[in-house]
Each structure stands twice: as C-alpha cells, then as structure tokens.
C-alpha cells in the first residue's frame, strides 16, 4: 500500500496517530497534528509505501501544535523518538522544518553507511554523485534530471554508501527548492507535484517537489534500487554561462567530499577506504551551466558513453573507470 491509496481524510486521521512510511531502507513513523502540513505531505509522499507497525522503527518523528492563547504567531514543535527537539517553530514554517527533521534523521544516525552530503541521481544502476555548496544549483539540477531527464532520484541531500559493496542506497525525500529556482522548475516541469510555497524560512521562500513515482518504484525493487557510483560531478550554476564539463582532480574531489561528509571522521579508516573506493570508481568533473536542458544533455551523454563502454567491456560498471575505455583520467592506487 502507498500513501496515495488512502483517501485524504483517512491520511489526515492516521497522521494524527502516526503513519509508518518506508523511506529507502528506513522505517519512519510520522505523526503530524498540523492539518496544513498533513495535507501537503499527502501530495508530496503519495508514492511512498506505508508499512504496518514494525517491531523496529528507524525514526519516530512528529510535528505537533503548541497550545497558545496569547498574541503572536501560532507555534509548533518537532519531536524525535518522543523527545522534543530544537526550538519551537512558527506553525507556518512547520512543513519545511519537518522535512528538514527527516533529513536530519538520515544525516545523523545510519552509520552503517558512509553518509556524504550530496545529491545522487542514477540512470539504470549507474549513479552520479552531485556534491555542491549551497547556491550551486544542486537541487535545481537534480529536479531537472529526475523530472525532465529520465534519471531517477536516490536523494537530494545524501549519498548513503555501503562500505562493503560501495553501492549507494536510495533514500529519496521531496526535493527542497528555494527562491529563483521555484518559478523556473514550475514553468519547465509543470507535471512535477509541488507543495505549498513557504516564505520567511532561513533559506527564503522554499517549496518541496514530490519524488517521481518512477524513482519510488525503483527504490522498492529487489536490491532496493542501489546504484554503483560512476561520476562525481560538482555542479555550479552561472547565469548566462555556456555549459562546460571539465575533469576535476580526484584527490581534490576526495578532500572536498570528505570535508562535507556527515560521518567521514566517525567511521575512521572505513570512511577513508569507502570514499577512496567511490573516487576510484568515478570520473570526476566540474560542471558549469545556466540552461537545464544543456546540463541534462551532458548527463545523458555521460550515461550513453558509459553504456556503450559497458556493452563492449563486460564488467566495466563495477570496475575502475580506467578500464571502461572512456576515462578522462588515469588512476593509480598505492600506499605511500
């Protein structure tokens, strides 16, 4: 059963008591007693599987109103595992803050993975990891790729890398867009389900875009929709710039990603080896773009080249890119 199988009335009713939803490998009980937030989530989570009450919950999160009879804005509180977390929030901002709480759960808990701060999209089982500083256009590009480019969303915020396999596990949440990117995406991809616009957040005006049904379906397949990292691409939006894809030094890519990862230091040598294996398996690029269609074309070309190489070189998907025939870099591995 998925959320969309419920009527909105049933969904609202269940949300007041807690609904267990599957987000990638995680079982999450979400309790929301803010009707406007529950309504928006019905739209944004329509394709997410609903689970029967499990024995083990990964995360138990809630957004509840705070009783308030005085002047000033109505407030709400966020809870994690039954404990109130963070400062009270204005109720109008409860939706983005609740989404942030869900991201926070994934950023800070599942240390069986190396958790990289990066969007991840995939074509078939080949993943592109998109680290990016705030403002680089990572979420906008990610939205374009999954709603207009035939790529599937693994996550807009995290790459969950399994140390023993090097594979990335999907944990898709609705993509958060802010400010200028909102009208661009609304106009370019009108079929994308968009939640309500929320003004006055720390990031300005934000909206969330629903994860495409195709991405959710892939995540529900056997193997959980895991993908092999093939490309690390640092996107950077520059107004008016021509699209440009340039090789990025791998060692620098390693250091940049490690510095921004959520648990690289915590995992110690395992974190190092896991990230080194990811970098080993990937071509690294800097991508400058202004037009989403141009950027999508670049991604499509990379996927096409990799598929061609894979068909002419069996096993290249899981090997070093130097063996795939389309590598722009040379790679060596050594112990100093």
């Amino acid at each position, binding site marked *: 059963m998925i959320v969309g199988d419920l009527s909105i009335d049933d969904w609202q009713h269940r949300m007041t008591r807690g609904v267990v939803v599957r987000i990638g490998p995680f079982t999450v009980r979400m309790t929301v007693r803010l009707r406007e937030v529950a309504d928006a989530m019905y739209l944004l989570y329509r394709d997410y599987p609903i689970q029967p009450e499990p024995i083990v919950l990964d995360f138990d999160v809630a957004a509840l109103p705070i009783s308030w009879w005085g002047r000033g804005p109505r407030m709400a509180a966020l809870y994690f595992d039954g404990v109130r977390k963070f400062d009270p929030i204005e109720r109008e901002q409860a939706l983005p803050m609740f989404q942030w709480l869900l991201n926070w759960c994934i950023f800070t808990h599942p240390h069986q993975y190396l958790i990289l701060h990066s969007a991840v999209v995939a074509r078939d089982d080949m993943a592109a990891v998109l680290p990016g500083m705030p403002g680089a256009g990572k979420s906008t590009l990610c939205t374009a790729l999954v709603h207009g480019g035939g790529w599937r969303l693994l996550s807009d915020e995290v790459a969950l890398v399994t140390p023993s396999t090097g594979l990335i596990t999907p944990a898709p949440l609705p993509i958060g867009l802010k400010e200028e990117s909102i009208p661009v995406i609304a106009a370019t991809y009108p079929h994308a389900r968009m939640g309500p616009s929320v003004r006055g957040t720390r990031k300005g005006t934000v909206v969330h875009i629903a994860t495409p049904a195709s991405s959710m379906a892939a995540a529900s397949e056997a193997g959980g929709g895991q993908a092999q990292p093939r490309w690390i691409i640092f996107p950077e939006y520059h107004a008016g710039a021509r699209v440009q894809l340039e090789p990025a030094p791998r060692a620098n890519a390693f250091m940049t990603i490690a510095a921004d990862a959520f648990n690289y230091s915590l995992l110690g040598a395992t974190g190092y080896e896991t990230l080194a294996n990811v970098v080993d398996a990937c071509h690294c690029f800097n991508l400058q773009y202004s037009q989403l269609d141009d950027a999508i074309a670049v991604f499509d070309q990379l996927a096409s080249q990799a598929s061609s190489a894979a068909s002419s070189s069996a096993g290249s998907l899981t090997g070093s890119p130097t063996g795939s025939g389309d590598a722009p870099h040379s790679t060596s591995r*050594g112990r*100093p």
Partner: protein
Amino acid sequence: MSSPATTAPVRWRVACPGDLRGRSWDGVSVVHHVPSGDTQLLNALAAATLQRIAAGAIGVEALVEAACKDQPAQPRADIDRQVRTLLAELADVGIIEPDA
C-alpha cells in the same frame, strides 16, 4: 653540552606502518592516518618522501637527495626546505617519528 643522541643525524620512520592508508590519483596522494583520523593531501614530493620513509628508516639528507633526483629542475635549497618542512608537519601529526 649536547648529548650524542641529539647530535646524531635523525632518521625518520613511520610511527605505525599499519595505521597509514593512501591512494594516489594523477600524482596527488590522499593519506589517512588511522590513530589521529587526519586525512592529508600530499603533492608528488610529499608522497614520494613519505613512501621512502615507509620503506624503512631514512635520514633527511637521503630524502633530499632522492627528491632532487625526482625533480632535477628544482633548486636543491628549495627541495631541502620543503622536505624539512614536510618532516616537521608529519611528525607533528604523529605520522612519522625519529628512529630510535
């Protein structure tokens, strides 16, 4: 008056060889020191120097000599300074130590 131990040329060794991990891409190395959790980006000279120390205890002069052979176009004084600076930094973070 200095003791014999301080006047003897210092030879360097890797503190715990099993605790050092490294990968190289395009001549640049990323080294991870397990006990400290530090990850260092090393250029070609630094990586080669660390590799020589990892191969067995070695003195500064021998390291400079080898680095000069790697990079004949660079003035020896520059290489000498770079190697000594590198050794001090690696010793500071506990990756190398004087060979007793």
